């Protein structure tokens, strides 16, 4: 009898231990020690008027599950914009406790299917599936991001099986991957642009004739034919044609070296006054829009020598320094850069680059161009917007703030056994729908994320990592560009497209166990909008996407 009791007791103890061990569900995935969840209180930030120049009038948490955003101007693209990664929602208590940077840059707390388990800087980034995710849970328990700048290295890792998927297959390796029955190649639609940017504040490019000369002096067809993979095309306009109103109006100049030479002469350059040596800046970083930067740069160098007799010095810069220099307008001469669509709208292309809120990348803004872009952005239908974008494209051709070169085709590759593998036209592959049949899925991209607070990042390698972890009110369909409801269950706009009301999904949990409410949404957005907000710090404090999409900040310090 006694023996039975002790056996029973042992069993009970063992069972309770087992229960305790498995009871991790009650523990949040991410611990935020010392943080207490605050009760919801309605909150609102409103601009005194719309004179400050931005698009947003007010952001308001009406009740626990209702967010209302009013605009200064109608914006039909608002859902596409607010769905973007950089407007993701994090718990307001956490934002407050980090001061807007610090831990926030390394460990974002979101509502997504994965949470950040560990970031070994320089080595790998490890995500774990979030057990309390509100939607369909991630298929694989552990997701690992690794990176390698060399396409040969990425392909080798995929072939040897140490990774399950790679980004940007080298242009010469498409055939290799297609010919390998163990691998699957997925091409990414060319929803991007590679351009040669020109800052109009530096001589000799402060002269419009010179810019127009260069616009005709480069054989872009030759660059695309020789140095871009299949699926790429010469850019007839800045924006790809698959984006509504992207390529309306006049196409770009034809390649015409004689006309270019004549223009240079008209601008006052001849044998007695030779054209100065100029620089071509770029970063040696492979992107979908630029698969082989060094080779393309040297071809441009050779072409300008051959066609215009202009000597070009190549200046390869470190990626971060290059982007900073471009943004702050300190790159003289020419620079090669590109852009991949974040959401499929003209505002994401011409609006971001040449609109009212654009950076100093191309020097002083072209006022007529800004006016055309802003007028077009406010109209509701594509047909109404068309004349303004025709005007925009005509003005871009006239002013030449940049020379559009190519819409680059690119591809990702997975092991053939991976289910759910896809290539996103926006570059934001969603790994929670993929499975390799094991408990760890390894993805290898070009570079390490810069930080994981994507409100203040523009680099695609960072954004892709953030997209696994954090979510915005709206989002984009997996592998596509259509906008769908994510944290907001539904949303509606007033008839004038100026007031947008979002109904939040109830009982959405953050990775630290807090519950999502409207005040979290407002806190996450206003810290970006309001430059005087103490949390308006971020990684660099630039918050480029906010200003690019919604115009100047509220309470921006006078320049």
């Amino acid at each position, binding site marked *: 009898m006694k023996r039975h009791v002790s056996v029973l007791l042992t069993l009970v103890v063992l069972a309770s231990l087992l229960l305790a061990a498995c009871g991790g569900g009650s523990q949040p995935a991410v611990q935020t020690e010392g943080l207490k969840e605050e009760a919801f209180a309605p909150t609102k930030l409103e601009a005194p008027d719309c004179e400050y120049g931005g698009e947003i009038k007010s952001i308001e948490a009406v009740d626990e599950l209702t967010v209302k955003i009013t605009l200064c101007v109608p914006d039909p693209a608002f859902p596409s914009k607010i769905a973007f990664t950089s407007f993701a929602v994090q718990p307001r208590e956490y934002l407050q406790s980090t001061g807007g940077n610090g831990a926030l840059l390394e460990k974002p707390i979101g509502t997504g299917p994965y949470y950040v388990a560990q970031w070994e800087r320089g080595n790998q980034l490890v995500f774990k599936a979030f057990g309390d995710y509100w939607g369909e849970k991630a298929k694989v328990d552990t997701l690992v991001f690794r990176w390698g700048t*060399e396409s*040969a290295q990425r392909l080798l890792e995929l072939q040897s099986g140490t990774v399950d998927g790679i980004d940007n297959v*080298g242009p010469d390796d498409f055939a290799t991957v297609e010919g390998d029955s163990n691998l699957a190649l997925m091409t990414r639609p060319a929803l991007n642009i590679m351009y040669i940017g020109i800052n109009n504040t530096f001589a000799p490019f402060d002269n419009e004739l010179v810019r127009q000369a260069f616009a005709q002096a480069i054989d872009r067809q030759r660059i695309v034919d*020789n*140095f871009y993979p299949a699926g790429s095309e010469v850019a007839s306009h800045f924006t790809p044609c698959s984006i509504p109103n992207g390529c309306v109006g006049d196409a770009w100049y034809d390649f015409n070296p004689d006309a270019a030479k004549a223009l240079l002469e008209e601008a006052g350059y001849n044998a007695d006054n030779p054209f100065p040596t100029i620089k071509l800046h770029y970063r040696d970083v492979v992107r979908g829009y630029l698969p082989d930067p060094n*080779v393309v740069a040297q071809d441009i160098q050779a072409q300008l020598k051959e066609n215009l007799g202009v000597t070009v010095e190549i200046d390869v810069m470190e990626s971060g320094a290059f982007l900073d220099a471009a943004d702050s307008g300190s790159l003289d001469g020419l620079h090669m850069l590109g852009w991949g669509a974040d959401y499929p709208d003209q505002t994401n292309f011409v609006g971001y680059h040449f609109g009212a809120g654009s950076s100093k990348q191309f020097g002083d803004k072209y006022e007529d161009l800004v006016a055309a872009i802003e007028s077009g952005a406010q109209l509701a239908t594509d047909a109404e917007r068309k004349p303004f974008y025709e005007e925009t494209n005509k003005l871009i051709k006239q002013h030449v703030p940049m020379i559009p070169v190519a819409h680059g085709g690119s591809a990702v590759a997975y092991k053939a056994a991976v289910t759910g593998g896809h290539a996103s036209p926006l570059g934001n592959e969603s790994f929670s729908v993929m499975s390799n049949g094991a408990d760890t899925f390894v993805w290898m991209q070009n570079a390490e994320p810069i930080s994981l607070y994507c409100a203040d990042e523009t680099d695609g390698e960072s954004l892709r990592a953030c997209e696994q972890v954090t979510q915005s009110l709206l989002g984009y369909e997996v592998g596509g560009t259509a906008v769908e409801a994510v944290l907001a269950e539904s949303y509606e706009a007033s008839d004038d497209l100026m007031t947008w009301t979002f109904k939040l999904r109830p009982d959405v949990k953050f990775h630290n166990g807090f519950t999502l409410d409207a005040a979290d949404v407002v806190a996450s957005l206003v810290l970006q909008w309001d430059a005087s907000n103490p949390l308006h710090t971020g990684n660099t404090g630039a918050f480029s996407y906010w200003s690019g999409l919604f115009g100047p900040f509220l309470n921006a310090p006078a320049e």
Partner: protein
Amino acid sequence: MSADTPKIAKLDAEGLSLKSVSLWQITWRRLFKRKSAVLGMVILGIMVFVALTAQWIAPYPPTLSMLDAKPPQNLDKRSSPCIHLFGCPADQPQHILGTDGNIRDEFSRLLFGSRLSLMVGLATVSFAIAIGTVLGALSGYFGGWVDNLIMRIMDVLLAFPSLLLAIAIVTVLGPGLINALLAIGIVSIPSYARVVRASVLSVREMDYVSATRALGGNTNQILFHRILPNALTPLIVQGTLGIATAILDAAALSFLGLGAQPPTPEWGSMLGAERNQVFTAPHLVFYPGLAIMLTVLSFNLLGDGLRDALDPRLAHVS
């Protein structure tokens, strides 16, 4: 006994003729007896010949894209070698080593690259020797605080890994071939300064130096006319071997994008530009690498040979 006399006379004659043979002639003879040194000289000779005649041997200008050639050639980038003699179709333009990523003739670039590599080697080593010799000679001749000051600075320079120091210097000066030359020159000064100082230290105590001093020779005369010429041999060996290192360093800098700037044909940067194509276009990585290897090897063989030939202790070996 009478039969012996002519023998002695003959020996005398031999002795006399031996005396008239200079150190350089002896060295030259010894050098030719070493197969490895001869091999080094032959390779080097070919390299020098190629460098001098590159513009006549090379089928195309090194920076010309075949798309700009007249008539334009419709080639794929990184096309594999095409040699008509070995069965490449006659309607296809001949490129002995294929074309590179920018559709330029790899063979022509390789030929012109030899110019740059040899020039880099000679220029940096001459620069380093010129400065290193002066510093080492002053250091060894005057001794005392001059010696201390100079040699401690050299020690500091030596304490850095040379390539890292060169990278740091180039980063400050800005990338480019001339700056890379300067950087490599600067980092190799200490080894020459040390060698010269050591030989000056041993030579300055020689009797003929004392004799010159006794005859009233001034510092200039003693140092540059008596001591230095007799302290040169180790410097020659060190210099020859140093050229090899300098070429390697320059290639490394260019590989990293800090040396010769595009479109200059430089072996290191050619290698660096095509590093991703190891599997798809191996010839673009193989030939520049081979060229670097051969050049460095030739200088190393020659340097080793010279060291043995110039060393009197090894006289019996030859």
